[in-house]
């Protein structure tokens, strides 16, 4: 307070203290004001409904009238329903059949594009990423016309009449192919970014020590990329358990859902919802959550474990 205002010292001290307290109050309150719109909407739109969903999964509720408490009966009914197991098997098939090819292909593409023999990286990078920006619904529709039996592109190029989408034995693999084709660009970009964070000196040191290209990839690059790999496999697994669009748009028409022989787990949630079995529908969601949790946990353990052995 260096200003020469005609105020007594005590007055000045008092006003300063008041103002300081006001500033501190504002300072303390500000972060809460900034987060509250997000937090409040998140609570009303996610946390609240999630709790409601959890409670609902123990009840029979048709959307009107009163709800009946069932205990674990919804869950029991689901795990003894054969369609649940068929759809779970399909979901796991879609996941395991695509994940390794997808990850290896995306990683090798990233290694190749990053290597010194490719000079025009900025041309390849967006082109490889491009298929990923298409909506899954649009890609599934394009694949539907590619794999049509009578007038499909693939059959007309091959001169065959393979019932790609009518025969579910083939159609399941078309879904897998679609997942790989659509996902590659995304993981390619992530692996490329991961590779760029590796200090080039580390790799050079390995080369000076006489490591071949393969040895360098195996013993230097792969261990350094471990966290990126864990992230990629876990996120891809979570996405795979929630798969819905690809199989349904590829084989079903007119707003109907795919046949259970093709359908993923989320179809059970949808069909329960459409027949107003809300409790059971919610229970399917929570079973899905449990599966995601278990699968992620084991992936963390296995991948952390193998990494430590290699070190």
């Amino acid at each position, binding site marked *: 307070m260096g200003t020469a205002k005609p105020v007594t010292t005590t007055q000045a001290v008092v006003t300063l203290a008041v103002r300081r307290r006001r500033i501190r109050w504002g300072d*303390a309150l*500000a*972060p809460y004001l*900034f987060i509250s*719109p*997000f937090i409040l909407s*998140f609570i009303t739109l*996610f*946390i609240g*409904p*999630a709790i409601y*969903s959890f409670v*609902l999964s123990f009840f029979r*509720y048709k*959307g009107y009238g009163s709800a009946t408490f069932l205990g674990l009966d919804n869950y029991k009914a689901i795990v003894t329903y054969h369609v649940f197991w068929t759809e779970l098997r399909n979901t796991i098939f879609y996941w395991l059949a695509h994940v390794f090819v997808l990850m290896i292909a995306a990683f090798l593409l990233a290694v*190749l594009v990053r*290597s*010194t*023999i490719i000079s025009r990286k900025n041309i390849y990078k*967006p*082109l*490889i*990423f*491009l*298929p990923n*920006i*298409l*909506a899954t*619904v*649009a890609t599934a*529709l*394009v694949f*539907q*016309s590619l794999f049509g039996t009578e*007038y499909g*592109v693939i059959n007309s190029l091959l001169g065959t009449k393979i019932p790609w989408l009518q025969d579910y034995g083939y159609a399941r693999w078309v879904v897998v192919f679609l997942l790989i*084709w659509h996902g590659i660009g*995304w993981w390619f*970009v*992530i692996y490329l970014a991961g590779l760029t964070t590796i200090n*080039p000196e580390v790799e050079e040191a390995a*080369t000076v020590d006489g490591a*071949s*290209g393969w040895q360098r990839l195996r013993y230097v690059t792969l261990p350094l990329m471990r966290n990126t790999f864990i992230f990629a496999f876990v996120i891809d697994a*979570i996405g795979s*358990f*929630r798969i*819905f*669009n690809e199989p349904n748009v590829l084989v*079903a*028409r*007119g*707003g109907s859902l795919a046949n259970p022989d093709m359908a993923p787990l989320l179809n059970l949630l*949808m069909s329960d919802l459409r027949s107003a079995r809300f409790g059971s*529908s*919610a229970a399917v*969601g929570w079973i*899905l959550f449990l599966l*995601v949790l278990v699968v*992620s946990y084991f992936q963390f353990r296995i991948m952390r474990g193998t990494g430590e052995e290699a070190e």
Partner: protein
Amino acid sequence: MMSAQTSAIPQKSSQRYRTERQIAVIAANVFLTIYVLLALYPLFIMFLNSFKSDSEILSNPSYLPHVWTLNSYQAIFKYHGGLWRNFVVSAIVSVTSTVVGVFLAAMAAFAFAKYTFKGRDAIFAALLATMMVPGEITIPPLYIIFSKLHWLDTYQALIIPTVTSVFGLFMLRQYMLSVPTALIEAARIDGASHWQLFWNIMVPTSAPAIGALAILHFMGVWNSYLWPLVITTKQEMQPILVVLPNMTDPIIGFLPVWGTIMAGCVLATLPIIIVFIAFQDKFMSGVVVGAVKG
């Protein structure tokens, strides 16, 4: 290949080494070019078939059109109850959700990145933990709530559940952490209010991350399928990507009209492709945030 990859180190700079490297360069480029052409072939088919008549698609599905026609694009305006309206629905829903969602995430991210307050780390950790919970579990309760509110087939039902994104919050916070705190403290000493710190300092400096999130958020909502399928029953309130899979011949019924479907896919994809080409670096860096640092 092997010797080519070790090029950073001066080695026996023999003639043989140079030829080997040249072969590797050519082989790698040929391989990548073929890969890119094959990977983009479905996209070419989508574009080309949207310019064929419905009958030509059946006789000539895989090559350039013999006769280029805009019939399929006209059909989008003429038939199927005016498909263009579904594009409008998609646009209104995606734009509103993006503006609100990015704004909410940016404000919260600013506080999480640049303030110390009681409960900060606990709240943030709790938010991150919810990312493990599949959003689909909220579909049954939200459906019940919205139908009791008579909100089925409304914009608010399509928009509201899509606005909050923990991923977006996380992404912006990561970026804002790297903005120097000194910048904010200096402005604070100069007497800027908390709101000014956010709006005049943090938002402009975080523009790249905010832009990247806006693109990803827009794309996510524009491309969503399951929620709009649940919450809409009338075609005029359905986003374009929910209507397209069900397009059948307006006269015969049941037969898919591939020309119209492909034209619809092109129009539904084109805005995103344009944004991608214009902002590809932002686009791809948005994908990477959180993946590498985490």
